[in-house]
């Protein structure tokens, strides 16, 4: 049955240990300690490790490459200014992600942009073929392979459009969970909310995303 593919365990738990319910990356902790002592190489290692993830996190939330570049720089400037005050009670990357998310959401509030992509903007994927593909992905019994999905450019554009139609709160939690593959505890750390809030918010976000995607399929 289809549900046999569910509930699989995560394999990326290497180099992680749980401290008071939080995942602390030992390697990151050592690098942060060195950075705080003035080790430039350790600092560059940490930045290099997370720059791509932070950029993509910001880009997925704010949807504008120029803004994302600016916000990424702001995030790292903030990290550079605050690293000596970082007390290592949480993982470095959840702390860094929290800075990035806060800056991005504040930026979004200031700009008061309606969505990630304008609904009136021409989207290459708005053709019937890509929508039929989307319907097949959502409804077929056969589970598609992720690589197949990633290679389908039109399908990705439809998915991005649907993501952009969510509100900021729902989009952020979807990005953190489904794209950044963060645990609920980590998401709670990043968003500074309770674990129960993460569960309910993610549940509502996925329901909303599902509705948007199904609406795309109904247009065919």
């Amino acid at each position: 049955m289809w549900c046999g593919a569910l509930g699989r365990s995560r394999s990326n738990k290497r180099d992680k240990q749980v401290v008071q319910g939080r995942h602390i990356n030992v390697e990151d902790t050592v690098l942060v300690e060195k950075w705080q002592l003035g080790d430039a190489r350790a600092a560059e290692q940490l930045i290099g490790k997370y720059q791509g993830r932070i950029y993509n996190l910001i880009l997925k939330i704010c949807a504008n490459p120029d803004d994302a570049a600016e916000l990424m720089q702001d995030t790292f400037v903030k990290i550079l200014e605050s690293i000596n005050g970082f007390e290592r009670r949480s993982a470095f990357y959840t702390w860094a992600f929290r800075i990035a998310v806060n800056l991005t959401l504040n930026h979004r509030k200031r700009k008061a942009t309606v969505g990630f992509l304008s609904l009136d903007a021409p989207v290459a994927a708005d053709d019937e073929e890509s929508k039929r593909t989307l319907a097949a992905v959502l409804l077929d019994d056969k589970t598609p392979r992720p690589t197949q999905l990633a290679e389908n450019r039109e399908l990705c554009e439809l998915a991005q459009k649907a993501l952009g139609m969510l509100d900021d709160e729902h989009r952020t939690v979807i990005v953190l969970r489904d794209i950044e593959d963060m645990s609920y505890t980590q998401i709670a750390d990043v968003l500074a909310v309770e674990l129960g809030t993460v569960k309910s918010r993610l549940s509502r976000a996925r329901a909303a995303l599902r509705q948007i995607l199904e609406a795309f399929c109904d247009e065919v």
Partner: protein
Amino acid sequence: MKFENDPRIEELLNGFLDGELSTSEQAEVRRLVSKDEGVARRLQGLERCRLLMSSLPPAEPPAEVISRIKGLLRSRLAGGAGALDDTEHLRGAKHLLARQVLAAAVMMGLVGLLGAVVYRIVSPPDTAQRPVAVQTRPAVAPQALPVETKKTVAVEDKADVGLYSLRLATTDFAAVDAFVNKLLDESAALQYDVTKEPPKRSVYRVLCSKAGLSALVADLAQAWSKFDSATLVVHTGDIGQYVAVESVRPEQITDIVNQNMPEERIRLAKDFAVLNNISQITQAGKMLAFSDRTYPELTAIPKPVLTSGEKTAPAVPEGASGKFRVDLTIVVTGSTSRF
């Protein structure tokens, strides 16, 4: 099962999908899925959504931003805390701050300007309309007296002294002069000097209080009919400036002298001068009646009303032994003599 409306089942399905459930919760979800086709479809839909999102390809961060961040890092670690000051980011922040300060300054300036305009509109009238205290100038210095004197007089506070000349012309010089001389001699409330200029001119310089002058004028009034002319000169305090009240009557003199302020004395003297001149020109006696107090309300001088917060100088009370407030020169001449 109406699981669509049950947020707990939704959360359970999501938790199952994300591997966030305990063993017992996972067993519960498996049981639900096996028993309910709708729940199974719901779980499948959630999984497909998650799969779709996780398949979104990552974007490469701009290389120039990466190199800028590394440059910041190097300058920060090499140059200490101030190294970031040279970065474009902080320059932008400083520029923004400067603009905010400038905007605040402009706003404050505009508010100040607006306040000034509003004040100009609603402020009380200018001080020109306020009957306020006026600092009196020192009176004209007393002229040197001739040698023939009976009493030595001195004025200590010239600023408070009203300076007057009363010129009396009479055809019966000897009697009138003797009368005046006698009045002054018998009055204990004044001091005076006298200069006799034969044949028909006597100059008396009298220093007294206002009350003393009133008493003196009341006594003089008994012989007023003997005067061919009586002129009161009220000195303004400015050298060479005076108001001459011709055909002055005793009560007019008292009224003028008893005014508290120099300006009031001068104003009243001017009014009486005009009034008396008109009375001389007209044949009717009505105008004279004004000065006779037949119609006192017509000549009554209204008291000044304080219309501002600025206080006038308090009136100086005069005691029995009060200061000399009046410096009066009485010139008695024969009618043909000059003053």
